[in-house]
């Protein structure tokens, strides 16, 4: 029998991972580089929740909109301040990627400084904290599960509608496919990139701000999550945000349940190796189907389409 707490764990984790993965994949599609600092936006969210809950002693959910705004602002700053400048200086794809890694180090150091600074102010330990006790409960379910699920559903709907119904969303998809054609048609590609970085960073910030309500928050939250985010987006295929969603849920659930099952079978010490599970999946995906789930689906569709054609031809002759 799987304990209820474990299911809650798995769902909350998968929800948060999904928010991060969708953002990571979207920035990857638009900027064409993996943003290794993406996890750090979640780190920013974590510390905003700490500030709200421990320093201001208010409801931790107040941190959510704040985290969105501050992370989004940092995203725009990184894109315009670092990546765009580097591009102007003739930076290659590799040097842009290195710069995201540098930003990752920098934000992580700043979070550490902030944590040190908060320690005397908050009068609480600022490097490993958990706010489950501050969360509300609704029909026996933890508030963070409900809130993150609602947020997630809203997010998916919003993203879907934005990307298919609005001019901005359509131009984003156009930039993803062919940025020079999009610019010919009048899309300001740099502006579109900035907005998408803000959006994805903001979403990551929200995920981070919800995290300490269920899991332990610390300055390294972002980089700890990075392996899972990579695994989820590569499993999803790195080519569509819907693939990323499926990938994130699979990785999130496997990570939690897999750890539980392994610990049940081989002993509790195995829980420490949790992040090896997404890494293993990542390697398997790359070795067997490097185009991920999206690739599998596309192959399936192509095969079905060509079968249908053969059929039509057979009927015709």
């Amino acid at each position: 029998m799987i304990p209820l707490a474990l299911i809650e764990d798995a769902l909350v984790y998968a929800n948060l991972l999904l928010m991060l993965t969708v953002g990571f994949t979207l920035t990857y599609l638009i900027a064409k580089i993996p943003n290794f600092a993406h996890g750090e936006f979640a780190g920013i969210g974590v510390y905003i929740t700490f500030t709200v809950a421990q320093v201001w002693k208010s409801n931790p959910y107040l941190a959510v909109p704040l985290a969105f705004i501050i992370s989004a602002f940092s995203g725009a700053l990184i894109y315009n301040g670092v990546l765009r400048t580097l591009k102007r200086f003739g930076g290659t794809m590799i040097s842009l990627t290195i710069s995201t890694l540098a930003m990752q180090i920098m934000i992580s150091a700043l979070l550490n400084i902030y944590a040190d600074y908060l320690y005397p102010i908050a009068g609480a330990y600022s490097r490993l904290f958990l706010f489950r006790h501050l969360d509300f409960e609704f029909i026996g379910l933890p508030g963070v599960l409900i809130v993150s699920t609602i947020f997630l559903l809203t997010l998916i709907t919003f993203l879907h509608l934005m990307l298919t119904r609005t001019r901005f969303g359509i131009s984003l998809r156009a930039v993803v496919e062919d940025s020079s054609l999009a610019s010919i048609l009048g899309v300001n590609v740099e502006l579109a990139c900035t907005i998408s970085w803000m959006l994805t960073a903001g979403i990551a910030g929200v995920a981070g701000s919800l995290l300490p309500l269920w899991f332990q928050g610390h300055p390294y939250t972002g980089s700890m999550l990075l392996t899972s985010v990579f695994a989820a987006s590569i499993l999803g295929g790195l080519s569509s945000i819907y693939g990323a969603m499926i990938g994130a849920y699979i990785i999130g659930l496997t990570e939690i349940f897999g750890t539980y099952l392994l610990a049940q079978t081989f002993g509790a010490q195995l829980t420490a190796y949790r992040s090896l599970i997404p890494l293993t999946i990542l390697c398997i995906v790359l070795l067997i189907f490097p185009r991920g789930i999206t690739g599998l689906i596309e192959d399936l569709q192509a095969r079905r389409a060509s079968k249908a054609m053969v059929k039509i031809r057979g009927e015709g002759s």
Partner: protein
Amino acid sequence: MMENISWLLDIVVFFAVYLIVTLALNLQYGYTGIPNFGLALSVATGAYTTGALAGRIGMWICGIRSDLDYIMYNPMITSMINSAIRYDPLKGLTIFFSTIIIVVIVSAIIGFIASYPAIRLRADYLMMVLIAMAEAARIIGLNYTPLVGGTTWVSVPNVFIWMGDMASQFLIITILAISILIFLFMQYLVSSPYGRLIKAVRENELTAECVGKDVVKVKIQIMMLGSAIAGIAGSLWSFYCGTVLAAAYTRTDWTFWPWLMAMIGGMGNNIGALVGVATVIICRRLIIYYKYSLEAYIPFSVVWLEQILLALALILVMMFRPQGIIPEKPAKPKIKKTSQQ
């Protein structure tokens, strides 16, 4: 006076170890174009292998009871080995060199395994996999206690203890000598036809294929060679420290510092790596040296300041001097034109 010398020796050993790591990175990225962001993986492999094996090899060589738990009785075992080799240089040297040989083999194999899933794919996949692999190595090191004691540390035998008072100085000189040897080896390697081949792989994989080169094979070879060299650095560092602490092999310390050094000095150029390492080590040591005076002015730990400066330096170098202090130079033909019509 003594203090100044030990300070200097400290810099020398830092320089030597980081030089080896940076040379490995330069071989992989600078010459072959493989962006190895999992450099810490190879260094950690070297260190963990040393931590796990140097003492065990010592137990075997010195005939110490093998039913003792290696981790639990580690300090005792190490002191038993140390006293066994105090008057037996041969045993000490055997431990030292056999460990390094094993480290080379293990690191090369780990380098192969870590890069295998993504070496045929685009560079960004490889970057992600290698970062994740380095993280995984740290997690295994921190949690699998039989390896290097998990969150505690294991000690490494003092293999030069037979030198008496000069043991640590002699170790430092050995490390420096090994790093110089590796530097000379690299210089030799990159000026050979193989060096030309790896540069060709970096410049254009398709063209390299079309002049009959097996690109994937070359990349795998370089991943293995580079990892082995970085592994040696990890091993030497462990011998120098006398201990192996799993938590010490972080992304910042063993991936980004070498990246910064290689970038500052100039990629694709071993002299550049040398200059880069020297520059960064001196700056970094100065920060540590003036740490206490600095700490009065900044309200937080200097560690974070160091990291922020590292990140800033990396970005600024890429913006304003992407070719580094000493840019890559075209190779001159080794042999004079023998005929001209």
